[in-house]
């Protein structure tokens, strides 16, 4: 298994963000991490990225603690920012310095596919920045992509572009775990949907299993999380 979380708990003061969460994900799936606000999605992604430690339980990526395999995990933070004056060329310089697996050619292809203009970040709109950062994240060649709300705060057309980019990027040896509220728009691309509520996984079902239940992801979302 590529990703394993066993009985993971993480609190912030009195607030229990993740509460005894267990989840196992194989390679080669696009997984939707779904839940209402405060369900623990971002914390789960940060635990997998190695930015947070679990208070209890174990987090494993490729059988190891995430910090030991940081080079094989790409993380797109929810409110990602970069140096404001960076343009595509500058970002290539930065990301090739930070990440040996960064693919400049793929980055440029993704920028084109996502219709990101050739200008600095400071001159871009919110949606354009989001696409720029997504392109930079997807241009890495890793086993695990953690995308925190990549569809948040963007218009419908942009959402379609992002989803198309994700589909075009899919590889058999990699897992894409993305948190989102935009269930209806994104459900066509999920191989699996993981529903979180109050820091726990309440349902993890493949698209096939949901179909057998006669439910769309959106319907399951309403039923499980209501």
């Amino acid at each position, binding site marked *: 298994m590529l990703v394993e979380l066993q009985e993971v708990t993480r609190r912030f003061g009195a607030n229990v963000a993740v509460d005894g969460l267990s989840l196992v994900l194989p390679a080669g799936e696009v997984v939707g991490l779904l839940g209402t606000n405060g369900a623990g999605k971002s914390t789960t992604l940060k635990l997998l990225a190695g930015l947070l430690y679990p208070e209890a339980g174990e987090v494993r990526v490729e059988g190891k603690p995430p910090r030991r395999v940081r080079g094989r995990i790409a993380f797109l933070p929810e409110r990602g920012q970069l140096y404001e004056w*960076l343009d595509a060329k500058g970002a290539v310089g930065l990301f090739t310095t930070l*990440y040996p697996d960064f693919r400049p050619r793929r980055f440029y292809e993704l920028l084109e596919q996502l219709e990101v203009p050739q200008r600095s970040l400071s001159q871009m709109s919110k949606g354009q920045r989001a696409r720029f950062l997504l392109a930079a994240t997807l241009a890495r060649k890793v086993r695990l992509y953690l995308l925190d709300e990549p569809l948040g705060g963007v218009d419908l057309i942009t959402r379609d572009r992002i989803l198309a980019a994700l589909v075009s990027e899919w590889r058999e040896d990699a897992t894409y775990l993305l948190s989102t509220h935009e269930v209806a728009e994104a459900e066509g691309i999920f191989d699996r949907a993981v529903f979180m509520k109050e820091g726990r996984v309440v349902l993890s079902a493949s698209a096939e299993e949901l179909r057998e239940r006669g439910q769309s992801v959106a319907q399951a979302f309403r039923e499980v999380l209501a």
Partner: protein
Amino acid sequence: MNLFTLELRKHRLLIAGLALLLLVWGAWLARGVTGGDPLLTLGLALSSLLAIAPFGVLVPIVLARALAGEAAGPLAFLLASPRSGLAHVAARFGVGFAALGVYYAALVATVHWVAAAAGVRYDAWLPLAVWAYTIAGWTAPLLALGLVYGLLVSAYRPGRGGQIVAVAASAGVLAGWSWLGRFALERLGFLPQLPLPLVVLPEKVGRFLGVAGGPLDLKTALEPLVQGVPTAPIWVGLFVTLALLAVAARLWEEAEWA
């Protein structure tokens, strides 16, 4: 663009501010040297140096604040990278060190120029030694401490209680600095010493101080009191810097980033 270039560009306003400060100060002194009394200008240069030199403290403060402000921004991308924390810390430290290295070199060079115009003679290595002392004994450890402080604040986000502890710790840092200075001078006397530099002040200064008989030779005057200049503070400063950078790199890699 590498990390060093990015950090340099990020802090360009601070660097430009320091450069402007130097330009204004240099121009003021140049006017004194060319249109006034060079010896009097040297006195002004030395006294104003006490006011202008501490501006270098702004660099570690700004670098530390930048770290705290970035935790939810660019830092997320930097932190998630597999490159060692030392690479990131080194880039930030390198920028601060380069900026302050040039700043203090310009200060020393300006005073050197005014002193030469005023007729003060001294060994050619003296300006370089003063600069090295400033950089190794003061600037480098302060910068490294600023990075550790910034990383601690960004990683652990102390509340009001933690901030009170931090302020108290700042006083502790001053005490620690003083203790280290005494330790270097009293216990590390076996480390190499620099010879007493030759410094000869013009006759006018001697007359002003009531010493007759030509230029005032400070080396001859000081030789009965001290035999050399200890280099121990430089070594202690470098050791403390390396230790603090190691702590900063460890914090970078091991701390949590919510």
